[in-house]
């Protein structure tokens, strides 16, 4: 579990330190001050800057290069400069994310290099490839104290793009990877989340997911993912106690669908990390305490560390209702399971709120966001 985090030259952050992280962490702060970028930085760290992981959040931000080549073949590359401070992509550009995880330091550094690399070959289908001496490529250095460090090189196309479909990491490098799921603000359950259902169905996690959906719909008995003639790619259906026929999940509203996406992502992140951007999206204020209770209970059962963002006061209040109130003298909330952190533009340290401070701020109308 990560306790402290340092981000350098990533997106808008020249330097940002976030300390006193706990099992569940809620990030607040003004629009465009970097809350989502902090989630992305940690996700990048725990997935070792794997291009598929980067694609997960870069596509959402339209930070991709789309072009056709060789006739009508469509290509999709990551516009990698967007990850570097100032969007500068040249030899020497670099960003790093490091953290203390159970007392041990883990870090990734991504650096842009120029010239010949023994391991990087030219990108196929590059519309205007550069000469080897001018070509840019990206070195990812991954360190985790107690484990063998490694690096990996990826080519950068002449457009400044990186192919998201790189070959998988070899076995010995995979030990740096942690399980992680990233739920964007507009994600809801869809056929994309369905791919995880085969691992969840018929396990105790299926029950956890159903418990979560019952926060919105108490009459929910079962959920299943089914395929048939009229739904070839599959659809989620739910059985409610007072209805004979199952109904499509979609009939139960966008909030239910989003909650399903959240529940699936949480149970899929056992021993790893869950990132949820704007966790309150689509959820009525009256269920937010129950949603938080579900998140922290399952996160503790499955050993998941959760990072979420919000703008919503209701969301902060909901979190406050499951925090432990105490009159402890310590400001850093040593034994807390929950914490809140405000990210401020231009401030190289986040502002941390312990559980007791979250409770008192929420109950007495002290502004925190």
């Amino acid at each position, binding site marked *: 579990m990560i306790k402290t985090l340092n981000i350098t030259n990533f997106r808008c952050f020249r330097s940002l330190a976030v300390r006193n992280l706990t099992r569940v962490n809620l990030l607040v702060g003004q629009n465009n001050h970097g809350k989502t970028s902090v989630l992305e930085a940690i996700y990048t760290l725990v997935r070792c800057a794997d291009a598929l992981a980067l694609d997960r959040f870069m596509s959402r931000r339209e930070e991709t290069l789309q072009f056709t080549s060789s006739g009508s073949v469509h290509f999709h590359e990551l516009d990698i400069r967007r990850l570097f401070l100032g969007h500068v992509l040249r030899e020497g550009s670099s960003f790093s994310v490091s953290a203390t995880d159970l007392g041990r330091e883990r870090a990734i550094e991504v650096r842009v290099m120029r010239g010949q690399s023994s391991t990087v070959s030219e990108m196929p289908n590059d519309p205007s490839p550069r000469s080897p001496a001018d070509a840019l490529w990206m070195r990812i250095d991954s360190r985790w104290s107690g484990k063998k460090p490694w690096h990996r090189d990826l080519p950068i196309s002449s457009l400044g793009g990186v192919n998201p479909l790189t070959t998988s990491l070899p076995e010995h490098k995979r030990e740096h990877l942690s399980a992680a799921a990233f739920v964007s603000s507009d994600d809801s359950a869809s056929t994309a989340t369905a791919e995880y259902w085969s691992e969840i169905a018929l396990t105790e996690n299926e029950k956890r997911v159903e418990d979560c959906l019952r926060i919105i719909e108490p009459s929910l008995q079962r959920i299943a993912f089914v395929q048939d003639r009229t739904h070839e790619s599959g659809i989620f259906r739910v059985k409610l106690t007072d209805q004979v026929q199952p109904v499509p999940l979609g009939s139960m509203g966008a909030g239910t669908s989003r909650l399903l996406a959240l529940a699936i992502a949480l149970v899929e992140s056992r021993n790893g990390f869950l990132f949820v951007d704007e966790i309150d999206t689509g959820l009525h204020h009256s269920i937010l305490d129950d949603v938080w209770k579900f998140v922290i209970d399952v996160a503790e059962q499955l050993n998941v560390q959760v990072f979420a963002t919000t703008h919503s006061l209701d969301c902060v209040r909901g979190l406050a209702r499951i925090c432990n109130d105490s*009159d*402890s*003298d310590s*400001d850093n909330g040593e034994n807390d399971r929950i914490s809140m952190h*405000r990210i*401020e533009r231009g401030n190289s340290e986040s*502002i941390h*709120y*312990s559980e*007791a*401070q979250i*409770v*008192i*701020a929420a109950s*007495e*109308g*002290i*502004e*925190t*966001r």
Partner: protein
Amino acid sequence: MTVPRCDRNLLLVEGNDERFTIPELVEKAALVAWGDRERKQHPVEIFTCGGDKEVLKRKRINALLKTPNLEALGIVVDANGSVTNRWQQVRDRLLARFPTLPEAMPAAGLIETNDAGLRIGAWIMPDNQREGMLETLLCDLIRADQIPVFEHAKQATALAKTIPAPFADAHLPKAQIHSWLAWQDPPGRQLHEAIAHQVLDPSSPLAAPFVEWFIRLFELDDLRRPVAAP
């Protein structure tokens, strides 16, 4: 984006008596326009809690100090028994963020700015020097022509205590001033109404140090209305 003043200036007080009397004092004494209370356009946001023990709770002070866009936080607390002890308690809770706080409470009230540009203020009622509470200061504002009536209130209160009336010794100034208010016209006015109607004199020189501390801490000089030309 202009941040409203009431998000930049916060005052922490013990209870509603302070919450209502302080704006009246400042408005009447210094002619500082307090603004429309319903629509949150006042210059300082006042937070109450349940008494001196609550004011001193670290989690509250720390949460207030972390408020976004904060420029100044003021704390007003009753001395009760000992100003020195009370100051030590307050200082102890602020030292981490304001490492250069003086050992002794300044008579004119504390105002200090830390490296991050954040201002902290403290006022120990009644005047950073004597024992007592808010009501001790308010008793000082009784007009000269009403002093004989106040003397009677003090005697009556002392006599009531012997019956015995149940109020705590530490709350003597409260019992005295509310007794005196019972005999004003109309009887039974609340403390802040007494100031609003100048039954208690906000322009008394005895109120001035507190009012000046308040205006200096929250930088409200520009809100002073000009005195009407004679």
